[in-house]
């Protein structure tokens, strides 16, 4: 609750700071504000389940943990922006302000107790993303991506709102508890209006986390957006989105699990298949990462489909592992793409990584650890993330889904290792890349977190 208020106010403060002559204050100020928001997040820690805003917003330790992951990811990403000094057209104050506002939306959908709060939150988040996607104003691809994202997002919003309306029509309630009350009645468990509402709302949400067949926007948007905002989208939106879907399903619709799980299972398998298989064909690392984010949505969907007592924790762990690895991967990509830029445009193909390890062993190592974690190789956090997700599915007996998931992880190894092979084994003439100290700290921190939780996953549990 406190971060929502703090971030809203501080976002406006950042906008005002933009009037100052010197732009150098913006980056440290934003980082400070994020740190403040993170600190305020823990005021409610261990205070037990709390309800705020007339019972429309709930706070538990787990939602606070999701908030923390989102805020820490945002902190790491903002630290990598370097104040947007490279781009003369950039509007740093606006970007930072919008990022802070979007976090308000993310936190709202992590802890909503009322569908209106959810809707407002997801729109805050989405509109912010439409703008950031198009922030590279002179770049046609960025503009195109932004417009596509907006058109399709608006469509999905319509569907979602329709779903919410139907749910209200069926149950007479917007609150999760109210809906659960209706679902648990005999009439509720059979209501077709309720079913239709749930499906449409779910479809809208699945669009936001790019599950197939609602994923088509993802590769184009991720590819077209400036890399730094792609990182933001693929970590923060995804983490918050999954927290939100989990909340909806577990708090309101656990009673009719048998109704929705088959649909979700089919979507899961489709998402895993599309994400992993199409990633194989990409020549651009960035586009591969877009498909990779689709495939990780698939793995997270496995946990949702299983919906056991452990699901929330496994989603939490997985989001953490995935976010950290993604941030370090994009961090390295941004450095390389700028170093190897062609005609002033960043070069994001696999070839740009050739021979990286010779002159830049640290970058190559960071990249390798991140790829290993994304591929789910043991001794990285990504392995345990997958392990927890898979074991929850095994507990539910969803073996056929696991078989697909494991096969698809094997496919994943192919495209994740391509870049590792390029950086260690291929010939190339990457010079020594100068990495700003702050940037380096972010990369090393992300790598250390990945290895630490890979060695001792129990440590994470203890933090909760």
């Amino acid at each position, binding site marked *: 609750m406190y971060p929502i208020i703090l971030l809203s106010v501080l976002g406006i403060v950042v906008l005002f700071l933009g009037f100052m002559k010197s732009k150098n204050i913006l980056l440290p100020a934003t980082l400070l504000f994020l740190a403040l928001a993170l600190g305020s997040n823990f005021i409610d820690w261990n205070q037990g389940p709390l309800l705020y805003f007339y019972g429309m917003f709930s706070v538990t330790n787990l939602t606070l943990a999701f908030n923390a992951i989102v805020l820490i990811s945002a902190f790491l990403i903002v630290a990598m922006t370097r104040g947007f000094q490279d781009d003369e057209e950039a509007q740093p104050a606006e970007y930072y302000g919008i990022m802070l506002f979007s976090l308000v939306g993310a936190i709202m959908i992590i802890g909503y107790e009322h569908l209106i709060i959810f809707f407002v939150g997801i729109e805050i988040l989405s509109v912010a993303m439409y703008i950031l996607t198009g922030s590279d104003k002179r770049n046609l691809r960025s503009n195109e991506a932004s417009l596509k994202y907006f058109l399709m997002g608006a*469509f999905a919003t319509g569907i979602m709102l329709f779903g919410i309306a139907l749910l209200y029509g069926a149950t007479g309630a917007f609150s999760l508890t109210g809906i659960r009350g209706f679902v648990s009645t005999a009439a509720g468990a059979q209501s077709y209006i309720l079913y239709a509402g749930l*499906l449409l709302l779910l479809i809208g949400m699945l669009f936001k986390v790019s599950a197939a067949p609602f994923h*088509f926007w993802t590769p184009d948007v991720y590819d077209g957006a400036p890399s730094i905002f792609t990182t933001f989208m693929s970590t923060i939106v995804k983490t918050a989105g999954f927290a939100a879907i989990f909340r909806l399903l577990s708090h309101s619709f656990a009673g009719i699990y048998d109704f929705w799980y088959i649909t979700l299972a089919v979507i899961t398998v489709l998402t895993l298949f599309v994400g992993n298989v199409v990633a194989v064909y990409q020549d651009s690392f960035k586009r591969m990462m877009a498909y990779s984010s689709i495939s990780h949505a698939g793995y997270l969907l496995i946990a949702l489909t299983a919906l056991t007592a452990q699901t929330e924790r496994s989603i939490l762990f997985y989001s953490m592992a995935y976010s950290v690895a993604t941030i370090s991967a994009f961090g390295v990509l941004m450095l390389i793409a700028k170093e190897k830029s062609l005609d002033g445009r960043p070069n994001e193909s696999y070839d740009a990584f050739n021979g990286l390890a010779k002159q830049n062993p640290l970058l190559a190592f960071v990249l390798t650890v991140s790829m290993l974690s994304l591929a789910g190789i043991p001794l990285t956090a990504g392995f345990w993330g997958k392990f927890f997700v898979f074991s929850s599915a095994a507990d539910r007996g969803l073996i056929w889904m696991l078989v697909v998931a494991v096969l698809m992880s094997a496919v994943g190894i192919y495209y994740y290792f391509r870049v590792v092979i390029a950086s260690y084994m291929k010939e190339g003439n990457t010079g020594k890349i100068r990495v700003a100290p702050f940037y380096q700290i972010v990369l090393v921190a992300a790598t250390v977190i990945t290895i630490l939780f890979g060695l001792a996953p*129990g*440590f994470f549990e203890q933090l909760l």
Partner: protein
Amino acid sequence: MSASLLILIPLLPLIGFLINGIGFRRVPKGAVGVIGSLAALGSFAVSVAVLSAFKAAGSEPQVVSLFDWITVGNLNIPFSFQIDQLSLLMLMIVTGVGSLIHIYSIGYMKHDEGFGKFFAFLNLFLFFMLLLVMGSNYVIMFIGWEGVGLCSYLLIGFWNTNTNYNNAARKAFIMNRIGDLGFLLGIFTIIATFGSVEYTEVFSQATGLSIGDPVVVTITLLLFVGAMGKSAQIPLFTWLPDAMAGPTPVSALIHAATMVTAGIYMVIRSNVLYSLAPFTLEVISIVGIATVLLAASIGLLQNDIKKVLAYSTVSQLGYMFVALGVMAYSASMFHVITHAFFKALLFLGAGSVIHAMSDEQDIRSMGGLRKKLPITFLTFLIGTIAIAGIPPFAGFFSKDEILAHAYEHNKLLWALGVLGSLMTSFYMFRLLFLTFFGQFRGTHEQEHHLHESPAAMTIPLVILAIFSAVGGFMGVPEALGGTHQLAEFMSPLYEGARQVNPEAFAATTLSHSEEFMLMGISVAAALIAAIAAYVMYVSRNSVPAPDTAERSSLERLVYNKYYVDELYNGVFVKPIAGLSNLLYSFGEFFIDLIVLGTGRLVKGVSGQLRQTQTGSVGYYIFAMVVGIVAILFWNLLIR
């Protein structure tokens, strides 16, 4: 006892490893040895502090939990240390003897270009060995177990430009892997049976089982396979003599005093389980005594100073297993301790000789060294007397205790043990006489170069010699009017075992006169062997024949180590290599077909599927609508 103090014990060597390992070639040579040795000495000092705190607190075993490590389903594996009598004794040996050997290495390895690397590996070894003995569950023990195996591999192949040395390192690693497989299966069986790997939990559950329970027999046998590998017992012993390819301090630390005793530590740690499995104990004592005799007989004819000591180590480890087999756990630990002293001493002495002889290891080229190397000679003499079992030196007490327990258990076992002791005394005195007595038989250059080693090397020798001389007094038998302090100290470890198998821990039935007789016989055997060696190699001045000489068939059999290596080569290595070649030439085709085929298939599907990403928003929305309609249609109408 605070956790922060305990964690320092393994942490210090780890820090030493990191400094010397990462800073290799950058840390000045003078600092490398000091850092490495200080790390070892530091953890020795902390261990002493922990020991005194432990005694002051009433000798209560303690488990200090550091953090939850792995939680999977119902299985929870914490990262925690257990401090009790057994781990403390091992700590003292590992850090104490380890520190001396670190200091010795400063002198011994001074001229080696891999000086920093050497100390880094030694520190890393200490770290893993300390994890092994301090861990409070089988999984941490396993990490240490694998870690010391890795360090052993790295250090055997330390001079990696020599192919033979690399092969020796590989042999050690592979043979240990065979044992490790058994150990790992044992741990899995423990998890399946008890649902935990924590010692306290496993042993308290085990006390509910009955003697001879097949599950316990399986577990103990599997664990013993691990011990066979690590502690070089038949049939997995051949790696240890080859491991002498490593630098001599490594042989002293890893392949004599500490790592090879890990198997014994593990059995004593699991004494509750072993006390429940008489069949396994029977197997252990048979394997143990067979190893004693086989290795000792090979030792009789070896001419390489380190090889003799290596076979002697194998044979002494055999004695320790004999003791375990008759459930004389304290006696076994006693021998581990005294053996650590005198065998480390003998190896370091041998190192001093090799150092003086400009890397010559063949005792046929030595002789008369006692005048040039007085300190080395005196300390080596003490070590020899100690290992031969002549009172009042350390080896006498520990070996005699083992033999007494063996006698109680089975007269034949005792008789074979005495035979082994006779051989031990002979080959050790043969080594001593050929090296230090008579005339110098090496080249003129070597003779010119002969010198006593520097103080960094002789001081550890002297300290170890003192312990080899008086170390036995911690366990004086009652018959000689002493108290067995070690057995009293270790007694609380067997609470559980005593509960499940009270007969095994009944007071001794031997009368004092019987004990005196046993002692007399074994001392007489040792003395006779020593005199025989004196007559042969000093009075008659005979020197072992060169390798090319004609030998009788029995002599040839022993000289060539019973052709065990050749046997393994013929029975295991060659058929496996043949099969591997066959599969390579034949199977590769099919595997390539499958692998490449799958790859092409995925890529083909990927290429097709990629076409769906057209870039047109109208198409995308159409696809979404189709998806939505399909979902609604199926869920609301068909179902």
